[in-house]
């Protein structure tokens, strides 16, 4: 997706020079392979630092809440859905934003590539439309990008921005038939004991660093429930009940709002697949209420509303 860079810079330069915006939010090239750094270009001289490739998995909506200035934001499909969510939830105003839409072909799963080449030092990762090229000490491998996409990107059905002011390119084709919930269904098939053990194993490496929470654009509360002191009802240790309680409620708070952007998993330093929880809720909400997060500026998230004939099969 590097081919978008000139267009991004062109738009950004124009917007900044014409003072249509105060800043352009995007990425700059990272200091290590497969990492880029969220970056705010504030003047035309910053514009050439703006960068784009398949390593821009951090959701930039996370940098928008409660901002006062007028900002242009480089946004892929999921980012724009979170921007929609932000607008609906009063975190930012639509007229404050100039959305530079990215037709996204998916982000590279850095963790997967690192694991594939464990023990060998990767020094550079390049990409073209079809492939990812990994280079390093005596290393040069070409892998089709579809094989190393982040899991959320490989099942993504909204690659293109849902709102934008300007697109950097033509929309990409979006798959119309993807089963997003294979893994969820497999877990649903387990019995309760298996499920508990499964999640216990998944969450036990958690170090409570809250990178999942903090990388999530939905988590903008001034004080998170885990930090509440009266009552302080979730312990702060690595006790498994506390850890699972944290992840349970974090996911619940994202219910109907999560766009499956994958920031949480990307940010997690210990590789916890916490999307298994948010995606479960996404599946339930789709099935029960036919709702998809971040698609419309006119709709509140599903827990903020109801229909008189909502399903109640579980209620006696």
């Amino acid at each position, binding site marked *: 997706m590097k081919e978008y860079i000139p267009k991004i810079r062109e738009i950004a330069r124009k917007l900044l020079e014409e003072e249509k915006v105060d800043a352009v939010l995007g990425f700059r090239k990272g200091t290590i392979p497969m990492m880029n750094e969220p970056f705010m270009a504030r003047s035309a001289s910053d514009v050439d630092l703006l960068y784009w490739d398949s390593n821009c998995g951090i959701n930039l909506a996370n940098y928008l809440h409660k901002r006062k200035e007028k900002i242009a934001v480089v946004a892929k499909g999921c980012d724009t859905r979170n921007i929609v969510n932000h607008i609906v939830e009063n975190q930012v105003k639509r007229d404050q934003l100039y959305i530079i839409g990215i037709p996204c072909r998916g982000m590279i799963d850095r963790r997967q590539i690192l694991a594939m080449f464990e023990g060998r030092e990767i020094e550079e990762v390049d990409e073209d439309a079809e492939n990812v090229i990994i280079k390093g000490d005596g290393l040069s491998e070409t892998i089709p990008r579809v094989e190393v996409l982040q899991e959320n990107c490989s099942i993504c059905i909204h690659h293109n921005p849902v709102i934008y002011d300007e697109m950097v390119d033509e929309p990409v084709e979006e798959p119309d038939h993807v089963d997003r919930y294979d893994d969820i269904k497999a877990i649903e098939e387990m019995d309760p004991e298996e499920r508990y053990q499964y*999640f216990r194993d998944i969450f036990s490496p958690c170090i409570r660093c809250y990178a999942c929470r903090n990388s999530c654009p939905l988590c903008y509360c001034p004080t998170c429930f885990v930090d509440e002191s009266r009552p302080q009802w979730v312990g702060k240790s690595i006790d498994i009940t506390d850890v699972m309680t944290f992840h349970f409620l974090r996911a619940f708070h994202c*219910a109907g709002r999560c766009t499956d952007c994958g920031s949480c998993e990307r940010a997690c330093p210990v590789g916890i697949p916490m999307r298994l*929880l948010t995606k479960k809720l996404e599946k339930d909400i789709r099935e029960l209420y036919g709702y998809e997060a971040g698609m419309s500026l006119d709709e509140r998230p599903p827990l903020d509303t*109801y*229909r008189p004939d*909502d*399903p109640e099969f579980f*209620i006696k």
Partner: protein
Amino acid sequence: MKDWEPKIVAFLCNWCSYGAADLAGVSRFQYPPYIRVIRIPCTGRLNPKFVLAAFRHGADGVWISGCHPGDCHYLEGNYYARRRFALLKSLLEYMGIEPERIHFSWVSSAEAGKFVEVVSEVTETVKKVGPLKYFMKKRPEVE
């Protein structure tokens, strides 16, 4: 030593299900004595945290009951609650809480009979599934 007896927390809305519990009393209906009622104004008041906290403090089962849809004293509270509950129950079960431990019902203040039926059913299912195994807070396994 007495046999294990389940501990079940019942969050009842003040206007309907709590009233049904009172009416069951007035009617002298008998039911198993293992529920501990926490009165809340409306099922809409039920924060999912309460359910997690109940398990955390060792409840073997949780039962939440309110007014029938359309009969909410606060007009719409139970409609919102219903969505919250659907997801809450689903996610709890997904993470390993047995479905037998978490129950929801609509019981109006006139339905003393239904109240007793539901208490009995809840008690039976919780009894069957046995003491809570996970999600209760114990001393952490740390150095």
